[in-house]
């Protein structure tokens, strides 16, 4: 079966991640949309690695997952600090830098 099916699915998942990032108000859900986009990109990497018969794409996915783990740890720590300081998870209320 053609690889383009996987790439189309990856594009759909990435687009849904973008839509969630733009439409959601809860900072944790926005963060989850970023994870969804990372997953979509991982699928594209694996599909291209399969199409080219090479394994470098899989190595890249491995590193993406490792960096995503580090990013989740630091990002969620930042979410905890924001929730503690602002008493809210709504991004509309986190507007201290707004003019």
């Amino acid at each position, binding site marked *: 079966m053609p690889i383009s099916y996987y*790439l189309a699915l990856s594009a759909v998942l990435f687009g*849904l991640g973008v839509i969630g990032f733009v439409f959601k*108000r809860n900072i944790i859900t926005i963060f989850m*949309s970023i994870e969804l986009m990372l997953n979509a990109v991982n699928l594209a990497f694996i599909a291209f690695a*399969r199409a080219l018969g090479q394994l470098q794409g899989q190595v890249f996915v491995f590193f993406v997952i490792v960096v995503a783990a580090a*990013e989740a740890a630091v990002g969620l720590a930042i979410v905890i600090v924001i929730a503690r300081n602002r008493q809210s998870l709504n991004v509309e209320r986190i507007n201290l830098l707004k003019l």
Partner: protein
Amino acid sequence: MTPQLVIFLILAAIAVAGAVSVILQREPIHSAISLITVMIALAGLFLLLESEFIAAVQIIVYAGAIMVLFVFVIMLLNAGAEERTNMSRMARYVGVPLAIFLLIELAYQVGAATLSMTAQPVADGATRGLSMLLFQDFVFPFELTSILILIAILGALVLAQRSEGAPAQRAQQ
């Protein structure tokens, strides 16, 4: 219809339904569980693409460790339902159709541009070749990631600790 295509369609439907559910659910914990289903479906797709090691890592690290961290933080902060967004008329009648158009257009163009690509066999087993690459060609980035994770642990600890005289405490006093 080959068996691979049937399995692909089932897993793709689960993944897309889960991703839509991530957006539509208003409770963060429901979004998190939907995201776990997306990740498990993607692990099945990785198996279908004959990358067994990445499928296992996807289950263990993504659906296991990272999502447990998310669920833990949601419960720690007692995050309730998202406030109802009073979407402007512009967002409802222009933004939503444009977003759906973006999805269809992106999927169509990416699919059409790569229609001639077919799967190539990997010379020696995927997991064996992957370990060879990881510990020979990419050994320096591989070791760097351990330092990255160490720094991430330190950063998370420093950020999340409640120190004496922190702004939140001063505000409460």
